[in-house]
């Protein structure tokens, strides 16, 4: 197991290096002059030359990339001229916010999706199944912004029982002092994701129910509650664990629409804004962050396999 983890970490570092190189080159192939867009149209050629020199933009792309990696090793993700803040400062203030919002949403989605999916599998082709399937399809097909707008219109504007925006405190502790502000954004994200999770859970549970060990457990007189909990749920969670693991990077990107709609600045929105403003340092910083999250999520999913399924053992 330890060897496996070490190998996977080594692979991950290589993947991350390749990712940063690929993204760096692609972003620098975008049209437009960075210097002119940052300094402004009044910039003279000497000013542009000075800016390019100071920011390594007059070097070859590979040297720029090398400079970037060197800074990265020293803990410097760069400075965003657009935001007048270091990229690390930007990310360190927004990552906890995203972890709180999107992380909570994922947890809520899983908590709802697992029992609903199991219930659908157990009562397959019943009214419960049809109803839950219909709801899932409706939520899955509905864009999250439309769902969010509907929730805002009903609960914030029509009945005025919940705020239309997420808590506005800059710090995580401050955010927790206004939990009512999280209800609508978390509901929007959770319901969107729940539909996906519950479909996977239903499908997986139906497969598991057909397994011999389920029939054996029932035949030996094990109570249905224990059959479901010990044998069905645990074995059906494998694909959902994969989904959750791969959802880790989504913590930083999935919230884009919700961040826009509920006035909750986060990494996803920051990345979108940075892309439209050609804010390269911020884009690279977030790309790296999402890359790390993807690799970590994949690793965690693999570890979850081993924990959930005794047949899966790595040595």
């Amino acid at each position: 197991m330890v060897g496996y983890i070490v190998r996977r970490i080594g692979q991950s570092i290589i993947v991350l290096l390749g990712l940063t190189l690929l993204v760096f080159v692609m972003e620098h192939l975008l049209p437009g002059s960075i210097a002119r867009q940052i300094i402004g149209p009044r910039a003279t050629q000497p000013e542009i030359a000075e800016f390019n020199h100071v920011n390594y933009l007059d070097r070859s792309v590979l040297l720029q990339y090398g400079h970037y990696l060197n800074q990265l090793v020293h803990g410097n993700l760069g400075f965003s001229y657009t935001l007048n803040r270091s990229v690390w400062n930007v990310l360190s203030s927004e990552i906890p916010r995203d972890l709180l919002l999107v992380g909570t949403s994922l947890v809520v989605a899983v908590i709802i999706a697992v029992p609903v999916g199991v219930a659908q599998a157990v009562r397959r082709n019943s009214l419960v199944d049809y109803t839950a399937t219909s709801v899932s399809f409706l939520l899955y097909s509905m864009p999250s912004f439309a769902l969010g707008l509907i929730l805002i219109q009903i609960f914030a504007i029509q009945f005025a029982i919940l705020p239309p925006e997420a808590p506005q405190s800059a710090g995580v502790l401050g955010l927790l002092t206004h939990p009512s502000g999280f209800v609508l954004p978390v509901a929007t994200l959770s319901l969107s994701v729940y539909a996906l999770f519950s479909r996977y859970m239903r499908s997986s549970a139906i497969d598991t129910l057909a397994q011999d060990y389920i029939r054996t457990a029932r035949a030996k007189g094990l109570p249905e509650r224990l059959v479901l909990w010990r044998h069905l749920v645990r074995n059906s969670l494998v694909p959902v664990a994969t989904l959750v693991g791969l959802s880790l990077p989504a913590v930083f990107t999935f919230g884009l629409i919700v961040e826009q709609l509920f006035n909750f600045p986060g990494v996803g929105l920051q990345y979108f804004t940075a892309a439209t403003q050609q804010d390269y340092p911020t884009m690279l910083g977030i790309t790296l962050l999402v890359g790390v999250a993807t690799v970590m999520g994949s690793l965690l999913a693999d570890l979850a396999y081993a924990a959930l399924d005794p047949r899966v053992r790595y040595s």
Partner: protein
Amino acid sequence: MGKEQAASSRTRGYHGPGWGRGPGATLLVIVAALALVAAACGKSTPKASSGATPTSGSSIAPPVGNKTQGGTVTWAEAPQVSPNYIFPVDNGQVFSVANLDYFQYLLYRPLYWFGNNYKATVDEDYSIANPPTWSADSKTVTITLKPWKWSNGETVTSRDVAFFLNILKAKPTNYGAYVPTYFPDNVASYTEPDAKTIVINLTQAYNHDWFLYNELSQLTPLPLAWDVTADGQPAPTTDNGKLPDSTPAGALAVYAYLNGLAKNTAGYANSPVWSVVDGPWKLANYTNTGELDFVPNPAFSGSPKATIAHFNEVPFTSEDAELNEAKTGANNLTIGYIPQAFVPQESSILPKGYDAYTLFGFSTNYFIPNLHNPTMGPVFSQLYFRQAFQELVDQKGWISAYTHGASIPQYGVIPANPPNTFADASGQSYPWNFSISAASKLLSDHGWKVVPNGQTTCTSPGTGANQCGAGITQGEAITFTLDYQAGPVALDQEMKNLKSDAAQAGITVNLTTHPFNQVIGAAVPCQPTDPKCAWQVQNWGGGWIYSPDFYPSGEDLFATGAVANYGSYTDPKADALIAATTTETANPQKALNDYQDYMQQQLPVWFQPNAAGNPVPGGLTIVSTHLGGFSANAFQALTPETYYLTQ
């Protein structure tokens, strides 16, 4: 130097991506696309949507109830546009409306104040300095200061003005509004004969108004307490002749220190440096999400002094988020906006406790042909073609159908709104009203065979009066690419309508959309052989706002080689007229009139509707019915010291 303005507000001098970033706007894009498909089956002239005309005007209604002391006024920042730079010597990276008008001006007052009461003029009562006086040869200007105080008890002196000038002169390129040969290059020397007076000697005689509105407008006194080069140095209180800024190298060191300090946004509110202010407000809190809390500066010397206890600038991630907050009522958001795409919802928002106003910034809106483009440059260089194409711009139809009445036609380089003394009759109308037949006739009169909904071609090449013009060949068609900002719903609809109308004159317009920065970034002056000259027409949706160069002369925009003359327009007569607007003359207004009238005929750019939105561009301004003292500034500055709440 003015600034490019986007269809919505943005950062860095020009404004960035804005309109329609929200999901609601995406939905509207789909709706608009369906509408356009339907429209394509009929006439191309846009149809007005019923009930879309806003009920608002620019006249500010008195508040409901009785005046109270204290309270908090919340003001909505533009989506994803928050102030992020405090040092009032803004470099090009941070030179923006958000940083100047919404932040620094509240703390550090410029020497002269402009635009109050929705008038594009200097406000002498609001200014720190008395009106400047000039020498007989118009080459020396003398400024006397009013007895203002800094919040640390020091007096605002001429030395503080010289401090600002010393930093600018040491390295002008550190200043975002710097234009070579203009300020401070045109300042030969300056002296401070006493603490109240500064005398500035110029390299040549200038139009007094132009120099006041465009050059002196940029001066901001800096406290001597800032004249340090490192943390821990004692803050100077008097000039002992050895202050760091006294030498260019020292001034650069001071700039480097303060600029570095300004990069620590987390330290803004508690900084002993930035807390020394002469404006009506002090910064009480600054969050990394862009929320700013201002409290009154008890030592403020000017008038009026603040009545409210807090002025809170609140950030929004999207137009939808701002609109949703406004819909919850004016108790939560005192001053906000209804984005242009949502103007039809005005009637449902006003009952939440708002009045709505159609307010404009002192700006002109246009899109730009590249006269040096190797393919289409020869066509764009023909005056008759520029006039013909302007006749294909259905400004009134667009305003009615696409902007829901929340914009006005733009007829020339100087806007008629906000009210000002600069615009003449050419600001009110022009001879290029929408007419496909007139446009077609202009083309056919100059050697083109017009094929409606086909391909118009040149049948008479040559340079004669009735021929196509220099550089245009036999059989050449008129086909070009127009790049415009992605996102703004109205702009998207307008450009698609323009394409349709142009097709009826046999002109093929290929539309492409890009992020704002890409559009503005591609629009560069160039030579035909230059690879970057491939762009043909660029439209970033917002044209140009005259701020903080408030005098609407064209030396930045249309003079040969000007920094913002992106289309590479050149005309000797235009150059002479522009020069006349900046130099001393017996009748400065006549010079402005001659310039704006000529440019309306020349059309170096194509004018398009100018969207309402002040202080936040791109929609209607909504103000709580319980807020008194609100008035728009023609140049989008905020003056919350005039506000009061009522009960």
